[in-house]
């Protein structure tokens, strides 16, 4: 769905005067990240298949790039989009105070309470501008996972030039497992994230129109 299509939706039109939940820079970086991340995951699966770490392979119907060489070209192209967009997002998140306002403080008791409420289907979504404690924890967690997948990826790409980073991740072979685990965490997050966006459509609308 495009932004224009969303704006012509009557459900959305009557809330046009509502306060902005997601400023433009959040929405732009969010969707660039979505594109870059899916390209990285799809091509990463194809690369994984060339030398699987576990006893399974990803279907070539869902992996990107046709063969290893094509997948590597996609992976090492999309990495720039992912990294540059990620740096812009994190920098703006810190400089504008958005991270501080939205993600902190995270209180363990609230996390437990909101998690239980969510499982019971009783978690309120009255104000999309305020994240519940589970959301805060997940969004902070996925940010840190993004840092881990980027750095473990660099340590696999450059185990000689950045050998200290590679050592930090336990050496070349272990870094591959770390990179894979981070991908798994991101895919798991995506499943929950997309499911919840579908269950609470106004959150998707907010990420498209800002309101």
């Amino acid at each position, binding site marked *: 769905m495009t932004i224009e299509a969303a704006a012509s939706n009557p459900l959305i039109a009557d809330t046009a005067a509502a306060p902005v939940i997601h400023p433009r820079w959040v929405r732009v970086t969010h969707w660039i990240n979505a594109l870059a991340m899916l390209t990285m995951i799809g091509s990463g699966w194809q690369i994984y298949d060339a030398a699987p770490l576990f006893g399974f392979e990803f279907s070539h119907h869902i992996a990107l*790039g046709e063969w290893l060489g*094509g997948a590597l070209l996609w992976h090492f192209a999309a990495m720039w989009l992912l990294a540059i967009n990620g740096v812009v997002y994190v920098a703006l998140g810190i400089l504008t105070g958005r991270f501080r306002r939205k993600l902190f403080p995270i209180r363990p008791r609230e996390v437990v309470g909101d998690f239980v409420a969510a499982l019971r289907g009783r978690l309120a979504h009255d104000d999309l501008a305020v994240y519940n404690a589970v959301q805060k924890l997940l969004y902070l967690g996925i940010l840190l996972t993004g840092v881990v997948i980027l750095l473990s990826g660099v340590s696999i790409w450059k185990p000689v030039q950045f050998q200290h980073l590679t050592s930090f991740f336990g050496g070349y072979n272990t870094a591959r497992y770390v990179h894979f685990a981070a991908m798994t965490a991101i895919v798991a997050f995506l499943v929950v994230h997309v499911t919840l966006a579908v269950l609470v459509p106004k959150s998707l609308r907010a990420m498209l129109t800002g309101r």
Partner: protein
Amino acid sequence: MTRLRKPLPGVDPKLLIKDAAKLLPEPSRRFFLRGAASLGALAVLSGCDIIDGDTSENALRVISRFNDRVQAWLFDPNKLAPEYPESMITRPFPFNAYYSQDEAPDIDGDKWQLEIGGLVDNKAPWTLPELYKLPEVSQITRHVCVEGWSAIGSWQGVRLSDFLKMIGADTKAKYVWFQCAEGYSNTIDMPTALHPQTQLTLKFDHQILPRAYGFPVKIRIPTKLGFKNPKYVTAMWVQNNDAGGYWENQGYNWFSGL
């Protein structure tokens, strides 16, 4: 990356993609985005009814050349690849090629010569006994394959930078090109050729290089991916033009530094 087009009425975009793919010559089809059509990722780009193979492939190649420059810039000519104790050598060290082990070149060491060419003062070819007499260096380093797996091996031979100086190579030239017995080839950048661990390898684990690992000569480059380590080498040219290589020409990144 993509061209935006309005869908043509009555035309299945997926079939169009297939037909377009048939028009492309075989080598350039290899990156064609078969996976992309079904990948949810690019379904996001639902405006793109036709993902143009040529356009995206050209863009990806341009970015890959950019990545070559980034890697050349990152390459530190003095940074050594980590070395390992003998106990960590992978045994058996894997044979790896685009053909099976019994299809590997079976070279007669008595007749073999290393041909030297290009920007070099002394172009006389080298025989194996002559090469065996040169000062030997040794390394136990990690071979990292483009596929992702890695193995630790032990290689002995002549430091390539010493050999290049010995034959009067112009080390201001940009590239060194290697030709192999089975038709394989590689071009490497001069800074990598001059790296202290880049080796004209004659032995594996202190034994004459076996056929599986590239007899009689392999070029061991622990700062590059495995496919940039040619085996069964028959010729070495110092030159200013990039002659490409077997896999590089099919889309693997040219620099492929570690």
